[in-house]
Protein backbone atom coordinates (compact mmCIF):
# COMPACT_ATOMS: atom_id res chain seq x y z
CA UNK A 1 0.00 0.00 0.00
CA UNK A 2 1.78 3.13 -1.19
CA UNK A 3 1.14 6.38 0.66
CA UNK A 4 2.84 9.73 1.03
CA UNK A 5 4.06 11.62 4.08
CA UNK A 6 4.71 15.34 3.95
CA UNK A 7 6.36 17.71 6.37
CA UNK A 8 6.94 21.46 6.30
CA UNK A 9 10.05 23.23 7.56
CA UNK A 10 11.08 26.87 7.68
CA UNK A 11 14.45 28.41 6.87
CA UNK A 12 15.38 32.07 6.72
CA UNK A 13 18.01 33.17 4.24
CA UNK A 14 19.07 36.05 2.06
CA UNK A 15 19.84 36.07 -1.62
CA UNK A 16 20.43 38.30 -4.60
CA UNK A 17 19.36 37.33 -8.10
CA UNK A 18 22.21 38.30 -10.37
CA UNK A 19 24.23 36.63 -13.10
CA UNK A 20 27.56 37.67 -14.51
CA UNK A 21 26.33 36.43 -17.89
CA UNK A 22 24.21 39.59 -18.19
CA UNK A 23 25.14 43.26 -18.03
CA UNK A 24 24.19 45.33 -14.99
CA UNK A 25 21.33 46.82 -16.95
CA UNK A 26 20.11 43.44 -18.16
CA UNK A 27 20.29 42.08 -14.61
CA UNK A 28 18.14 44.95 -13.37
CA UNK A 29 15.68 44.42 -16.21
CA UNK A 30 15.49 40.68 -15.61
CA UNK A 31 15.45 40.48 -11.83
CA UNK A 32 14.01 43.86 -10.82
CA UNK A 33 13.99 44.40 -7.05
CA UNK A 34 15.62 41.01 -6.55
CA UNK A 35 18.80 42.38 -8.16
CA UNK A 36 19.39 44.85 -5.30
CA UNK A 37 23.18 44.58 -4.73
CA UNK A 38 22.71 44.32 -0.97
CA UNK A 39 20.41 41.31 -1.25
CA UNK A 40 17.19 40.68 0.62
CA UNK A 41 15.71 37.75 2.53
CA UNK A 42 12.79 35.40 2.93
CA UNK A 43 11.32 32.96 5.38
CA UNK A 44 11.25 30.00 3.05
CA UNK A 45 8.86 27.14 3.74
CA UNK A 46 10.31 23.84 2.54
CA UNK A 47 7.78 21.05 2.08
CA UNK A 48 9.22 17.56 1.71
CA UNK A 49 7.04 14.72 0.40
CA UNK A 50 8.19 11.12 0.97
CA UNK A 51 6.47 8.20 -0.75
CA UNK A 52 6.60 4.48 -0.19
CA UNK A 53 4.96 1.41 1.22
CA UNK A 54 3.32 1.76 4.63
CA UNK A 55 5.35 -0.44 6.98
CA UNK A 56 2.85 -2.93 8.45
CA UNK A 57 4.61 -2.91 11.83
CA UNK A 58 4.76 0.85 12.33
CA UNK A 59 2.00 2.16 10.07
CA UNK A 60 4.53 4.61 8.69
CA UNK A 61 5.94 5.50 5.28
CA UNK A 62 8.91 7.10 6.99
CA UNK A 63 9.78 7.72 10.61
CA UNK A 64 9.34 11.45 11.13
CA UNK A 65 12.34 11.63 13.46
CA UNK A 66 14.57 10.21 10.69
CA UNK A 67 13.07 12.61 8.15
CA UNK A 68 13.57 15.57 10.49
CA UNK A 69 17.18 14.59 11.10
CA UNK A 70 17.90 14.27 7.37
CA UNK A 71 16.36 17.66 6.61
CA UNK A 72 18.06 19.32 9.57
CA UNK A 73 21.54 17.99 8.84
CA UNK A 74 21.44 18.26 5.03
CA UNK A 75 19.32 21.37 4.43
CA UNK A 76 18.48 23.52 7.46
CA UNK A 77 21.96 23.51 9.00
CA UNK A 78 23.35 24.41 5.60
CA UNK A 79 20.99 27.18 4.52
CA UNK A 80 19.19 28.60 7.57
CA UNK A 81 20.38 32.11 8.47
CA UNK A 82 22.87 32.21 5.61
CA UNK A 83 23.38 34.16 2.43
CA UNK A 84 22.50 31.67 -0.32
CA UNK A 85 24.78 33.36 -2.86
CA UNK A 86 27.80 32.37 -0.77
CA UNK A 87 26.94 28.66 -0.68
CA UNK A 88 29.17 26.60 -3.02
CA UNK A 89 26.03 25.28 -4.76
CA UNK A 90 25.20 28.81 -5.91
CA UNK A 91 28.63 30.04 -6.92
CA UNK A 92 27.81 29.44 -10.58
CA UNK A 93 24.04 29.24 -10.26
CA UNK A 94 21.59 32.03 -9.49
CA UNK A 95 19.82 31.28 -6.16
CA UNK A 96 16.33 31.59 -7.57
CA UNK A 97 13.81 29.55 -5.67
CA UNK A 98 13.62 27.22 -8.68
CA UNK A 99 17.31 26.48 -8.22
CA UNK A 100 16.95 26.29 -4.44
CA UNK A 101 14.22 23.66 -4.78
CA UNK A 102 16.45 21.64 -7.15
CA UNK A 103 19.41 21.95 -4.77
CA UNK A 104 17.33 20.77 -1.82
CA UNK A 105 15.99 17.84 -3.86
CA UNK A 106 19.56 16.79 -4.69
CA UNK A 107 20.71 17.14 -1.07
CA UNK A 108 17.81 15.04 0.26
CA UNK A 109 17.52 12.41 -2.47
CA UNK A 110 18.15 8.97 -0.96
CA UNK A 111 18.44 10.32 2.60
CA UNK A 112 15.55 8.38 4.09
CA UNK A 113 15.37 5.09 2.18
CA UNK A 114 13.41 2.93 1.70
CA UNK A 115 10.95 5.85 1.43
CA UNK A 116 11.55 7.79 -1.76
CA UNK A 117 11.82 11.55 -2.09
CA UNK A 118 8.85 12.44 -4.29
CA UNK A 119 8.68 16.21 -4.17
CA UNK A 120 10.37 19.28 -2.74
CA UNK A 121 8.22 22.38 -2.67
CA UNK A 122 9.70 25.70 -1.61
CA UNK A 123 7.41 28.60 -0.79
CA UNK A 124 9.33 31.86 -1.07
CA UNK A 125 6.38 33.91 0.15
CA UNK A 126 2.74 33.05 0.81
CA UNK A 127 2.01 33.83 -2.84
CA UNK A 128 4.70 32.03 -4.77
CA UNK A 129 6.11 28.55 -4.62
CA UNK A 130 8.27 26.21 -6.66
CA UNK A 131 8.26 22.44 -6.89
CA UNK A 132 10.93 19.95 -7.92
CA UNK A 133 10.18 16.27 -8.49
CA UNK A 134 13.72 15.40 -9.55
CA UNK A 135 12.82 15.14 -13.24
Amino acid at each position, binding site marked *: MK*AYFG*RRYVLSASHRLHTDALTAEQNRATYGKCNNPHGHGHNYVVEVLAGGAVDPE*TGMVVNMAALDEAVRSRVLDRFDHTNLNLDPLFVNRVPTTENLSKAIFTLLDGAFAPAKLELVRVEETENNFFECTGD
Partner: protein
Amino acid sequence: MIFLTRRATFSASHYYWNDAWPAEKNEQVFGRCANRNGHGHNYTLEVTVEGEPDPVTGFVVDLKWLKDVMEREVLSAWDHRHLNLEVAEFAAGKLIPTTENIAIAAWNRLKPVVTSAGGARLSRVRVYETPEIFAEYRGEL
Protein backbone atom coordinates in the same frame (compact mmCIF):
# COMPACT_ATOMS: atom_id res chain seq x y z
CA MET B 1 -9.79 16.87 -16.36
CA ILE B 2 -10.60 18.95 -13.33
CA PHE B 3 -9.51 18.18 -9.78
CA LEU B 4 -11.81 19.49 -7.09
CA THR B 5 -10.97 19.49 -3.40
CA ARG B 6 -13.13 19.86 -0.34
CA ARG B 7 -11.65 20.44 3.10
CA ALA B 8 -13.11 19.59 6.52
CA THR B 9 -11.75 19.37 10.03
CA PHE B 10 -12.13 16.88 12.83
CA SER B 11 -10.60 16.58 16.28
CA ALA B 12 -9.57 13.26 17.71
CA SER B 13 -7.16 11.60 20.09
CA HIS B 14 -4.85 8.66 19.49
CA TYR B 15 -1.63 6.93 20.44
CA TYR B 16 0.83 4.74 18.53
CA TRP B 17 1.36 1.23 19.84
CA ASN B 18 2.23 -2.12 18.26
CA ASP B 19 1.03 -4.93 20.54
CA ALA B 20 3.55 -7.31 18.99
CA TRP B 21 6.42 -5.27 20.44
CA PRO B 22 7.65 -4.85 24.04
CA ALA B 23 6.98 -1.49 25.66
CA GLU B 24 10.61 -0.38 25.26
CA LYS B 25 10.51 -0.83 21.49
CA ASN B 26 7.20 1.03 21.21
CA GLU B 27 8.67 3.92 23.18
CA GLN B 28 11.86 3.90 21.13
CA VAL B 29 10.14 3.85 17.73
CA PHE B 30 7.12 6.03 18.47
CA GLY B 31 8.56 8.40 21.08
CA ARG B 32 6.01 10.68 22.70
CA CYS B 33 3.28 9.28 20.45
CA ALA B 34 3.49 6.00 22.41
CA ASN B 35 2.07 7.59 25.58
CA ARG B 36 -0.86 5.25 26.36
CA ASN B 37 -2.91 8.09 27.81
CA GLY B 38 -3.17 9.40 24.28
CA HIS B 39 -2.96 12.91 22.87
CA GLY B 40 -4.98 14.75 20.26
CA HIS B 41 -4.95 16.83 17.13
CA ASN B 42 -7.14 19.07 15.05
CA TYR B 43 -6.99 17.14 11.80
CA THR B 44 -7.77 18.57 8.39
CA LEU B 45 -9.21 16.16 5.85
CA GLU B 46 -8.80 17.13 2.18
CA VAL B 47 -10.70 15.06 -0.36
CA THR B 48 -9.92 15.51 -4.05
CA VAL B 49 -12.13 14.14 -6.81
CA GLU B 50 -11.40 14.25 -10.52
CA GLY B 51 -13.62 14.38 -13.57
CA GLU B 52 -15.04 16.53 -16.33
CA PRO B 53 -17.52 19.30 -15.53
CA ASP B 54 -21.09 18.24 -16.24
CA PRO B 55 -22.24 20.05 -19.43
CA VAL B 56 -25.52 21.08 -17.80
CA THR B 57 -24.49 22.02 -14.25
CA GLY B 58 -20.81 22.82 -14.76
CA PHE B 59 -20.08 20.72 -11.67
CA VAL B 60 -17.50 17.96 -11.35
CA VAL B 61 -19.47 16.97 -8.27
CA ASP B 62 -22.06 18.81 -6.23
CA LEU B 63 -19.99 20.20 -3.35
CA LYS B 64 -22.90 19.95 -0.95
CA TRP B 65 -23.15 16.23 -1.79
CA LEU B 66 -19.40 15.81 -1.22
CA LYS B 67 -19.65 17.65 2.10
CA ASP B 68 -22.46 15.35 3.21
CA VAL B 69 -20.53 12.24 2.14
CA MET B 70 -17.44 13.33 4.09
CA GLU B 71 -19.60 14.12 7.12
CA ARG B 72 -21.52 10.85 7.01
CA GLU B 73 -18.71 8.45 6.07
CA VAL B 74 -15.80 9.93 8.03
CA LEU B 75 -16.45 12.85 10.36
CA SER B 76 -19.46 11.37 12.13
CA ALA B 77 -17.35 8.33 13.04
CA TRP B 78 -14.08 10.07 13.88
CA ASP B 79 -14.79 13.59 15.16
CA HIS B 80 -14.31 13.96 18.91
CA ARG B 81 -13.40 10.30 19.23
CA HIS B 82 -10.43 8.36 20.51
CA LEU B 83 -9.27 6.65 17.32
CA ASN B 84 -7.68 3.62 19.03
CA LEU B 85 -10.61 3.01 21.36
CA GLU B 86 -13.65 4.01 19.34
CA VAL B 87 -12.92 3.57 15.64
CA ALA B 88 -13.08 0.08 14.15
CA GLU B 89 -10.13 0.43 11.74
CA PHE B 90 -7.76 1.32 14.55
CA ALA B 91 -8.86 -1.13 17.25
CA ALA B 92 -6.12 -3.07 19.07
CA GLY B 93 -4.35 -5.45 16.68
CA LYS B 94 -5.56 -3.57 13.60
CA LEU B 95 -4.07 -0.46 11.99
CA ILE B 96 -1.99 1.93 14.08
CA PRO B 97 -3.64 5.36 13.66
CA THR B 98 -0.64 7.06 12.05
CA THR B 99 -1.44 9.90 9.67
CA GLU B 100 -0.63 7.53 6.78
CA ASN B 101 -3.15 4.95 7.98
CA ILE B 102 -5.77 7.61 8.72
CA ALA B 103 -5.48 8.79 5.10
CA ILE B 104 -5.85 5.20 3.83
CA ALA B 105 -8.81 4.54 6.14
CA ALA B 106 -10.55 7.73 4.99
CA TRP B 107 -10.00 6.66 1.37
CA ASN B 108 -11.49 3.22 2.08
CA ARG B 109 -14.57 4.81 3.64
CA LEU B 110 -15.09 7.30 0.80
CA LYS B 111 -14.14 5.25 -2.26
CA PRO B 112 -17.24 3.01 -2.52
CA VAL B 113 -19.64 5.93 -2.09
CA VAL B 114 -17.90 8.17 -4.62
CA THR B 115 -17.58 5.27 -7.08
CA SER B 116 -21.21 4.19 -6.77
CA ALA B 117 -22.37 7.77 -7.43
CA GLY B 118 -21.07 7.17 -10.96
CA GLY B 119 -19.65 10.63 -11.62
CA ALA B 120 -16.27 11.92 -10.53
CA ARG B 121 -13.52 9.55 -9.34
CA LEU B 122 -11.83 9.76 -5.97
CA SER B 123 -8.36 11.07 -6.73
CA ARG B 124 -6.59 11.80 -3.46
CA VAL B 125 -7.15 11.95 0.27
CA ARG B 126 -4.81 14.13 2.29
CA VAL B 127 -4.88 14.31 6.08
CA TYR B 128 -3.09 17.07 7.98
CA GLU B 129 -2.25 16.15 11.56
CA THR B 130 -0.84 19.63 12.15
CA PRO B 131 -0.30 22.44 9.62
CA GLU B 132 3.24 21.06 9.17
CA ILE B 133 2.54 17.32 8.92
CA PHE B 134 0.38 15.54 6.39
CA ALA B 135 -0.07 12.19 4.69
CA GLU B 136 -1.86 11.35 1.50
CA TYR B 137 -3.16 8.28 -0.27
CA ARG B 138 -3.97 8.04 -3.97
CA GLY B 139 -5.31 4.50 -4.03
CA GLU B 140 -1.99 3.01 -5.10
CA LEU B 141 -1.26 -0.55 -4.00
